[in-house]
């Protein structure tokens, strides 16, 4: 009850301040509120009289600023309008984070896309050989789609094609440079001469089982030796073997 009375007094005071006539209000309080309102109106008038009626410079500046902002904004319109739609923005964020999550996510024995891309499965060229750079005349279609027309992804260009595994005709092969012709003897001979690429190739032979029995531990050891000579790809393949759970 007391609270209601207080609320009524407050509401009456507010109403009187806002210029409403209130019945049943204490005369003294009403007078005070009215005087306050009148004083406030007088003060407002006094201040507003000091403000010039016309201020062209004010609007001139505002218009110029708006024109500048419009010129700046027009280039951003497409981008901003796209993100103004909260649903679209949310969808992009979800898809983006999902993609990043999927590419980084690793399970036991399953490596991320990034790791898969960093895994080198092509033998490195060793010794002094004549190298002829052939122009890459593969088009967009050949790089990203298979012969059946299926999309193979933008990373497919990192994967070796069947052609790449074959020794080029115009190259003098030393039997430790191409996946197809790797031999243990030749690679061991070169590896003993501290050839980092030959050691890498030995690692690859053991990992893939080329000319030798597949042995991940041996592969790891040879990668390690190659990595000690500064071969970054060997280090990357070592990490791959660990992440994949092939060596412990």
């Amino acid at each position, binding site marked *: 009850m007391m609270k209601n009375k*207080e*609320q009524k007094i*407050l509401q009456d*005071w*507010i109403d009187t*301040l*806002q*210029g*409403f006539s209130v019945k049943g209000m204490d005369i003294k309080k009403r007078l*005070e509120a009215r*005087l*306050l*309102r*009148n*004083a*406030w109106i*007088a*003060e*407002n008038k006094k*201040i*507003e009289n*000091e*403000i010039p009626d016309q*201020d062209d410079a*004010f*609007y001139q*500046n*505002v*218009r110029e*600023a*708006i024109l500048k*902002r419009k010129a700046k904004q027009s280039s951003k319109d497409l981008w901003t309008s796209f993100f103004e739609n909260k649903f679209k923005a949310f969808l992009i964020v979800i898809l983006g984070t999902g993609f990043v999550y999927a590419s980084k996510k690793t399970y036991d024995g399953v490596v991320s896309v990034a790791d898969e891309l960093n895994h080198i499965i092509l033998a490195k060229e060793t010794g002094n050989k004549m190298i002829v750079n052939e122009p890459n005349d593969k088009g967009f279609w050949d790089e990203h789609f298979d012969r059946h027309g299926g999309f193979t992804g933008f990373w497919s260009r990192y994967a070796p094609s069947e052609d790449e595994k074959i020794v080029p005709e115009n190259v003098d092969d030393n039997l430790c440079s191409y996946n197809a012709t790797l031999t243990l003897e030749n690679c061991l001979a070169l590896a003993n001469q501290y050839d980092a690429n030959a050691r890498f190739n030995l690692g690859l032979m053991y990992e893939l089982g080329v000319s030798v029995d597949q042995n991940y531990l041996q592969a790891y050891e040879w990668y390690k030796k190659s990595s000690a000579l500064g071969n970054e790809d060997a280090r990357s393949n070592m990490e791959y073997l660990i992440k994949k759970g092939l060596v412990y």
Partner: protein
Amino acid sequence: MTKEKQSKRHQATEIIQLFRVGRSDEALVLFEKYEFRKEFISFAIKKGIEYEDARDLVQKFTIDKLYLQSNSIKNIEFARTWMYSVLNNMVNDQGRILKKTREVPLDEERDQSQSTKIMSDKSQTRSGCIQEQLAKFREAEPKRAEILEFILEGFSTEEIRLIIGRSYGATREFMSQCRKKFRPFIEICNEIEE
């Protein structure tokens, strides 16, 4: 709400709608026609900002807020409330900046200058006395004076709640405190005869 304030509310909505559809030139014409420039500058001046600063502030408000952010208003019916809410924040920020840069006189000097000013105004009319006490209240209780200002501007409790960003109950309590705190200030003027 008085008819005058009701129309102000509609006018504000009209201006915001024009800004929203990109008809800024027409919006500015109405802004001047409905005397919003004067109203906002006057609002800033009452909060202790000099005319030149207040003018620049309202200009900035028109460009950065009315033109650029008019789309952010969720309920267009509360356009005037939104305007005051944003302007109030800008004025408070400006006030803080000025307070930092302003040279503060020694306490003793300030007290003397204030008391002589109050005495001189008090000796005039009751209306003058109330005006003076209102100014004094603004200095002593800036937050409560802000609420008083919004009440006098004709805003409802709900609108004031939106402006100051508090709950309905807290706003109501704030208003009640404002009334109680202002009483001693106005009672001084009761002794003066009109």
